[in-house]
Every structure is written in structure tokens, then in C-alpha cells.
């Protein structure tokens, strides 16, 4: 392998360039806007290009075959594919190159779909010209690529599942059954999650806990699963295959010998609302979360126990326990665990409708939520399964369900919560099953019965006499004598205003991301979508992967979904994790930093900015060096070196400068150069494309792994070349995929602004913008604003600014 590389390095020197360019029509996706034949023709004339072709689908088997046969036939030593985003098909084309004997790092892609045809749909000429220039830039960079070998590291054959709801349970069991050790980390006292709280499931009306409990106990006794309840993730370090996770395991104050006989619970004098029962009943400070809890052991809620701060003021539970299992001296522990993969299945919170004051939740006792209803109708619940209304414990004769509470609304969650329609239909049938004479009204906007068996259930509810009224009430009034509720609203299908008197109102509340989901998001470098759910690596093709290698998503943490979808996704996530663990090793992209010991003066500035402490050395040694296995390839160290001693593999100074120069080879004054980090901003620009959000065609996006790689020298170079404006964009502060490396970005841009100020160059020509992967609209908005600013500048002014910058550099170099 090493020899191959050396041979290829020799064969592919600049003198002997043989580049093949492939312009993809992507059906009409690119071809409908960009004249691809013209682009290919243009590419043919570029230096080093020996073949240039356009094809309908380059990613198709014939498309790939074409590339492979050309590599062999024309002896190609570089391949440029102009098609969709490299975030989608770079692996495909790299594999194609490799199978034809070309090092995969000799492939370069020009993104002419997400960054061109889709965002300039109606500007065929401008899009075609832009595509040509993007291909020029790609060809220029390709000429400077060098072959690389990827480092292989072993994968720890252990997994961690965070969150013990049904998704976490399924994922843990699947991986454990495949033979891998699994740590299942659950924050509360028992696994089970939301599913344990629900009475029946839709559309089959199975008893929820009856089908969940066997899985829960299987987790409890599985030899490969280590269940960590009352536990939370504190710190995560490392990377795919080799994560180190610090888990805070809170004290249970009860030893493992507990038989959950309940004697201690009866003795406890402290009462508090029972979370599992949605606050409808009370529990003691020492308690079992619920009857089927796993582990089936009591625990003490120290916030409610009288024995705070280690002082034993009450020992009734201790006295009551025959086995002496109560241990007030128990303390929180921090566990240091090593795992190869992580599955995130943290679930969701339920929307709290209190802010919607017009509905009276929290004020009128007979207005309850669907979660409270689930507990009320559950045989194990506070009313023993009797449907009673809270105000007088009488059975309601007329019940209303209100749909879309907290969903599809800019006042709460903008998205559809997916489960509420079917949940309500199921609930209405449950009432009909037990008390058929109950009148049930469902007030809805749209009934979304899209899944297998859903429409049948909807039909059944209508046949059973459930009344569906289109138009949700605007307001609820409580009758002072009867506690009945009057619903005011409009029946939109009849066009009439209604007033219905009801005994009980059930608000079909939506689900939302966990309130503290940002904590795990930062610990694991995950992205979130605009709704706050964790974002998948690709919405269609990598639906359970995240942008952090080795971390997978399962269940509603990724987006509102029902039990079946959660379980499906959990098995998918487990399967993805199993692949990694069974392979046992993983390759690390060859994008690490390299230090030239001859140029290095051992000043150590680079080591100070490295987010991973991956640079070591000292004055005595005479130079610093990069620890390759620890380097994550952000490139933040490179711009810090004043002596040009560091460079980043595959994102070299030379490669990127060539992209800048080529982007500015025609009409530079009219151009915007946008540096975009791979994880957020480049993905955000891709998302603008996917969403077809249109923006001006004069922007040229250059990808770096992290915005920390963006060197002030590049910005300077662009301004010397008379660029119109420069955008530096990266992840939002604290969302950086490289441990806050983007703080260096901000610092460097600010310093450049000060230089611009001194030289009286309009500061607005350099913009810093944080754009996340979900913010396509924001990316387009920034470009539009910059374009507007650009239109106010004359080419003459831009030229004069460049002159002044040149002068200042001359002066600087003349100084001793």
C-alpha cells in the first residue's frame, strides 16, 4: 500500500496531470437549469484536463463505469465530478476511483446542484457560468491534490445507549443480543419511558405496559446489559470507535438487596406529586417509580426526604426495612466508561398547555391533558381505571378532545406532533369500549391518519358514534355551579358558531424536544433541526446516523414519532452500531495537520489553539509535532503559524489559495467568496439548495472542515485580488464540531476588521455569520444582504481598497 502511494505520488506530479471531468445532469435537477454540455465543453479546455464528459446520472452504475474505464483507458490521475454536494456522493465516487486503482484522495467534486442549479432555478445563463467557474475551481484544486492513506484505528466493542424508553430498550437489546456489551444509561429511577405511562397503543389497542414489561425485564437480566439508572452523561471525549464517557450515577440510598416489599414506603411521612402519574396522585419520598419498574427497587428522592445535607432527621424507612437495605451514606459516583458507539434515545417532553390561558388548563380542574387521561384510564392509575373528572370524581357523560394543542403553532411548536390524532382516536374508542353511552366530540383541524391500520381505526371511531367537528374552540368557559365546560368555536364545515357544554375536556397535547436536549447536543456535537430535534446525517439515506461518527439516533429524540417508528428506528440504530463493532476497526480520514520540523521555531502558538491537545513538543526538541491519532482535522492550528510550518492534509494552503485565485479570475469585484465549514454552514448552504431557496449567483463557496481553518491570509489574498466581499461562516458558538475551535474564527475575523478599519476599507465587505445545518434560509438571507451591500460599492472603490492593502503590506515587509 505504502509503495502504491509512493508510485502514485511520482506518477501524479504537476507535470504529468491527466484530469477527467464528469458533469452530471442529475436528470433535470441540474440539467434543467445548467447547460451541462456547455460546462463539459468548457472543462475540456482547462489546463490538465484530458477528458470532459457530461452524463445523465454520473452516480449511476454506467456513470461510474465510465469514470473507471476512463481512468484505465486515458490513464487519468485526477477525477473531478461536478454534481451534487460532496456530503452525499463523495464516498460513492471515491470508491469508484479506488476500484479503478486511483487513490480516493485524488477525487474532487464541484457542487453544481445544491450550490448552483437549485438556488438559481430561473437564471439559466448565470447558473451555467457559475457551474463553469465552480468546475474551474475544482480542476485547479484537483491539480494540487496528493494521494493519501487513511489511518485505521480499532473500535471498542462496547456500546452506550442514552435514554431507557422503548427506543433505548430496543436498541440495547438488539446490540446485547448481537453479543456486545451495552451500558444503558437512564436518568430516572426506572426504564420504560413514555410508553410505560400510556394505557393502550394505536392502532391495535394493545395494552402498552403488557407488551413493554417483558422487554424491560429482559433488559434487567440480560448478561450483556449494564443498566445504569439515576444516571446522566457528564462528559464525552474521543471519537468514533473510541469514546470515553463520564457518567454521573446518582445515589439511590437503597442497596441492591432491596426486594421492593414496600415496607419502607408505608413508613415514609413525606409526600410529593407522583411524576409517573402525571401529578394526578402522590407518592412518598422513598418510592418505586411504578409497579413494573426495572430495576424493581425502591429509591429515595433526596430533594423530598427530610434527611438533607447528610443529617439523619428521620429514619422511619430504615427502621421499617427488615433487610437493612436503606443506606443514607450512599453517594453519587462518576463512572469512566469506554465505548465504541453511542445510541441517543432521550425521548421527548410533553407540551404544557398552561400558557394557552383561553383553554383554562391549570385553572379549570376538568380540563386535562392526554397524558393525564392515559393515567386516569389505566387500571394501574390513580383512579384504578375509572374515568372520573377531577372536580367531583364523577364519570363524565360528555367528553371533548381538542386536537393540535401545542402543535402546528407559532405560539408553541410549529410542527405536527404526529401521534396526537391517532392517540385521540384510540382514547375515544377506549371510552366507548368501557362506557358506550358516553358522548364524545373531537374538535380537530385535520385528522392525520397516515399509517398502517390508522384509517381503519378512524373509521371505527366514526362508526362507534364519536362526533368529529372541524374547528377547534377559541375559548373554554367553566360553569361556576357544575364545573362543566362550555366550548366556544366555529364549525368550519357548517360555517356556524357553536357552544357545546361538556363534562370534561381533554387537550391533545403535542410533544417537544427535551427541555435540556442542548446539553447532550453539545456533549456529542450533534446538530438540531429548526424544531429542536436532533438532526440526522441525511433525511432519507442516513436517517439514524448523526454528523458525529459513531453516534446514532433512535426514537422521538430525532423527531416526533409513535412507538412502532421508534422501535423500527432503534433497531436500525443498533444495526448501524453493530456494523461498526463487528468490523472492529474504523478508518480516520486523512485530513490531519502536519508540521514541517525544518520551518518550525517551536514557539508553541499552534499547540495553544488546538482543541484536542493533539500538538506536542517544546523548545528543547526544537520543534512541535502533531499526534495523528488525536488530531481531528479541524485545521485551526494552521492559520496560527507565522512561519508557514503547519499545513492540513487534503485542505492545504496551496489547494485553497488556488480555489480563491480561480474564483476571482473573472469579474472579482462582483464576487462573494464564502468560506463554509463542512458541518454547519456548508450543510446549511446545501439545505438552502434542497429547500430551493433562491439567492444571488455571484457567491463562490469554499469548503473547510472547520471555520477555524480559515486563514486571515486567505481573506487578505481575496481582497488583494479585488473580491467584492468575503463571508466566513461556521457553526453557532458552542455548537462547533471541534470543541469551540470557532472561537478562533471569531477572534481572527475581528482582528481583520480592525485592520480594515485602519485602512478605511468598508468593514461590511467581510462578514462573519453563524449558520447551522438547518438554516438554509439564513444562509440565503446573509448572501442576499451581502449582495445588496455589494451593489452600493463601485469597482473603482474596490480597486483603491486593494491598492491600500497592498501598500500596507509593502510597508510591513520593509520594516525590520
Amino acid at each position, binding site marked *: 500500500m505504502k509503495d502504491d502511494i509512493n508510485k502514485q505520488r511520482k506518477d501524479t506530479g504537476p507535470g504529468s496531470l491527466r484530469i477527467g471531468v464528469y458533469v452530471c445532469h442529475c436528470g433535470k435537477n441540474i440539467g434543467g437549469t445548467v447547460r451541462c454540455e456547455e460546462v463539459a465543453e468548457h472543462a475540456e479546455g482547462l489546463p490538465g484536463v484530458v477528458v470532459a464528459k457530461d452524463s445523465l446520472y454520473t452516480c449511476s452504475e454506467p456513470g461510474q463505469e465510465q469514470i473507471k474505464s476512463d481512468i484505465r483507458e486515458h490513464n487519468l490521475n485526477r477525477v473531478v465530478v461536478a454534481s451534487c454536494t460532496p456530503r452525499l456522493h463523495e464516498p460513492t465516487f471515491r470508491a469508484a476511483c479506488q476500484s479503478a486503482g486511483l487513490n480516493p484522495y485524488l477525487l474532487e467534486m464541484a457542487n453544481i446542484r445544491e450550490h448552483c442549479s437549485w438556488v438559481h432555478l430561473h437564471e439559466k445563463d448565470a447558473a451555467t457560468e457559475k457551474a463553469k467557474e465552480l468546475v474551474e475551481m475544482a480542476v485547479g484544486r484537483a491539480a494540487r491534490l496528493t494521494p493519501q492513506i487513511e489511518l485505521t484505528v480499532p473500535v471498542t466493542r462496547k456500546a452506550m445507549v442514552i435514554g431507557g424508553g422503548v427506543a433505548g430498550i430496543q436498541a440495547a437489546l438488539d446490540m446485547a443480543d448481537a453479543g456486545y456489551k451495552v451500558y444503558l444509561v437512564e436518568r430516572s429511577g426506572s426504564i420504560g419511558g413514555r410508553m410505560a405511562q400510556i394505557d393502550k397503543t394505536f392502532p391495535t389497542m394493545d395494552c402498552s405496559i403488557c407488551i413493554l414489561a417483558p422487554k424491560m425485564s429482559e433488559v434487567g437480566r440480560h448478561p450483556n446489559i449494564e443498566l445504569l439508572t439515576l444516571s446522566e452523561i457528564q462528559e464525552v471525549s474521543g471519537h468514533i470507535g473510541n469514546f470515553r464517557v463520564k457518567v454521573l450515577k446518582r445515589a439511590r440510598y437503597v442497596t441492591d438487596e432491596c426486594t421492593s416489599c414496600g415496607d419502607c414506603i408505608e413508613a415514609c411521612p413525606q409526600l410529593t406529586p407522583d411524576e409517573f402519574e402525571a401529578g394526578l396522585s402522590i407518592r412518598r419520598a422513598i418510592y418505586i417509580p411504578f409497579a413494573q419498574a426495572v430495576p424493581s427497587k425502591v429509591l429515595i428522592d433526596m430533594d423530598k426526604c427530610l434527611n438533607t445535607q447528610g443529617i439523619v432527621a428521620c429514619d422511619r424507612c430504615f427502621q421499617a426495612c427488615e433487610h437493612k437495605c436503606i443506606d443514607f451514606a450512599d453517594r453519587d459516583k462518576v463512572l469512566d466508561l469506554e465505548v465504541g458507539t453511542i445510541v441517543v434515545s432521550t425521548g421527548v417532553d410533553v407540551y404544557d398547555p398552561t400558557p394557552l390561558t383561553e383553554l383554562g388548563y391549570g385553572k379549570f380542574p376538568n380540563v386535562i391533558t392526554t397524558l393525564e387521561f392515559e393515567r386516569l384510564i389505566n387500571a394501574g392509575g390513580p383512579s384504578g381505571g375509572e374515568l372520573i373528572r377531577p372536580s367531583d370524581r364523577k364519570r363524565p357523560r360528555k367528553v371533548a378532545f381538542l386536537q*393540535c394543542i401545542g402543535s402546528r403553532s407559532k405560539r408553541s411548536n410549529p410542527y405536527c406532533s404526529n401521534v396526537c390524532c391517532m392517540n385521540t382516536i384510540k382514547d375515544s374508542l377506549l371510552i366507548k369500549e368501557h362506557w358506550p353511552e358516553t358522548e364524545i366530540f373531537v374538535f380537530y383541524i385535520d385528522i392525520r391518519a397516515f399509517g398502517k391500520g390508522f384509517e381503519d381505526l378512524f373509521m371505527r371511531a366514526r362508526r362507534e358514534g364519536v362526533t368529529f367537528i372541524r374547528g377547534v374552540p377559541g375559548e373554554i368557559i367553566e360553569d361556576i355551579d357544575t364545573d362543566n365546560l362550555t366550548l366556544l368555536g*366555529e364549525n368550519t364545515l357548517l360555517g356556524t358558531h357553536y357552544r357545546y357544554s361538556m363534562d370534561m375536556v381533554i387537550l391533545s397535547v403535542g410533544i417537544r424536544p427535551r427541555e435540556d436536549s442542548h446539553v447532550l447536543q453539545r456533549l456529542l456535537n450533534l446538530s438540531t433541526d429548526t424544531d429542536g430535534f436532533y438532526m440526522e446525517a441525511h433525511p432519507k439515506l442516513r436517517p439514524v446516523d448523526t454528523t458525529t461518527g459513531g453516534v446514532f439516533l433512535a426514537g422521538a429524540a430525532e423527531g416526533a414519532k409513535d412507538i412502532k417508528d421508534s422501535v423500527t428506528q432503534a433497531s436500525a440504530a443498533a444495526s448501524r452500531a453493530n456494523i461498526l463493532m463487528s468490523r472492529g476497526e474504523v478508518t480516520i480520514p486523512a485530513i490531519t495537520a502536519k508540521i514541517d520540523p525544518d520551518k518550525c521555531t517551536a514557539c508553541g502558538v499552534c499547540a495553544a489553539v488546538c482543541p484536542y491537545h493533539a500538538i506536542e513538543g517544546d523548545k528543547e526538541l526544537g520543534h512541535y509535532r502533531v499526534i495523528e491519532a488525536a488530531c481531528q482535522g479541524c485545521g485551526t492550528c494552521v492559520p496560527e503559524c507565522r512561519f508557514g510550518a503547519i499545513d492540513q492534509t487534503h485542505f492545504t494552503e496551496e489547494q485553497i489559495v488556488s480555489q480563491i485565485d480561480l474564483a476571482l479570475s473573472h469579474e472579482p469585484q462582483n464576487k462573494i467568496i464564502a468560506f463554509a465549514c463542512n458541518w454547519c454552514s456548508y450543510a446549511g448552504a446545501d439545505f438552502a439548495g434542497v429547500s430551493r431557496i433562491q439567492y444571488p449567483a455571484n457567491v463562490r463557496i469554499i469548503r473547510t472542515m472547520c471555520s477555524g481553518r480559515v486563514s486571515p491570509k486567505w481573506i487578505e489574498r481575496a481582497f488583494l485580488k479585488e473580491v467584492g466581499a468575503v463571508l466566513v461562516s461556521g457553526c453557532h458558538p458552542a455548537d462547533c464540531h471541534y470543541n469551540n475551535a470557532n472561537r478562533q474564527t471569531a477572534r481572527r475575523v475581528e482582528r481583520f476588521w480592525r485592520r480594515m478599519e485602519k485602512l478605511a476599507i468598508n468593514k461590511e465587505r467581510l462578514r462573519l455569520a453563524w449558520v447551522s445545518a438547518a438554516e438554509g434560509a439564513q444562509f440565503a438571507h446573509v448572501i442576499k444582504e451581502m449582495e445588496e451591500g455589494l451593489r452600493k460599492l463601485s469597482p473603482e472603490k474596490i480597486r483603491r481598497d486593494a491598492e491600500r492593502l497592498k501598500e500596507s503590506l509593502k510597508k510591513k515587509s520593509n520594516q525590520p
Partner: protein
Amino acid sequence: MTTLRIWKFFSREDLYECYQCARCTGSCPAMEVAPAIGPRETILRCLNLGHQQVVEDERLWLCCTCHVCEDRCPQKIPITDLLVALRNSAARRGNIPDRLSMAIELLAKTGRSMIVHQLDEMRAHHGLAPLGPAPVEEIRDILEKTKLDEVVEF
């Protein structure tokens, strides 16, 4: 007489945000006691039939201007801005309730929206000085310049 450009007051795109949940009309007090169109149907009519048709309808004026529709709107559509724009446009076409045009005329002529007999005596009863004169000329001039006469003669 010039027609009013409704979409200068209210962005047309906001209409598309409406998914007809009817929380607005469900909360509307006018809808409870009078044959009003209601905000939901007003938006739907603008979308499906065009606002020209809406401004011809005198039921457009059955409204408390209480803004509760906007307050309850899950999509935060500035409904009351739309209703103001539609009524301004309706008034230009002569669709304006008599009581309202009379009130506007009085305001334009006197600078105040009401008059009573024996005002000074009434104020004196409460130990108050007579009310100073309203700046009638100035008001009239301002209202001429804003072209109120295109809608209500005064």
C-alpha cells in the same frame, strides 16, 4: 378616487399561513351575537375569491375591534391589520356604515368625536373649568391633506 393597495398594509404571504383552524372565529364576540363573516372566513374568501369580493360585503363591519382573533391565532397572522386594510378599502368603495361615516364627519368638523348640550354647566357641577376649544382649523387642514374627503365628505 384611488383604490387602496391592501397588500401595503398586510403582507399577502401571511394569508397562506392560515390553515383554517378557526380559533379566531371561535373566539370572535361579534360572531356570537351578529351575522359577521368572522376572521377565518374573511381570510379564506381573500384567498379563494379575492379581496375585491370581501370588501363589497357589509358584514365586514360587524366587528368589535377587540383583537382577540389575532391574540389566539396559532400562526400569529396579524389579522387585525388585514381587517383594517379591508375596511379602509371598503370605505373607499362606499361600503361604510352610516353611523360610522356620521361619526367621522363630526370628528372632522369639530375635532372631537362627540358633542353635548350644556357642557360648561356639566363640567362646573364637577368643579371643572370649561373645556378649551378644539383646534378645528388645524384638524381640518390636516384631514384635507391626508385626503379624508376621498372617503367621507366633510
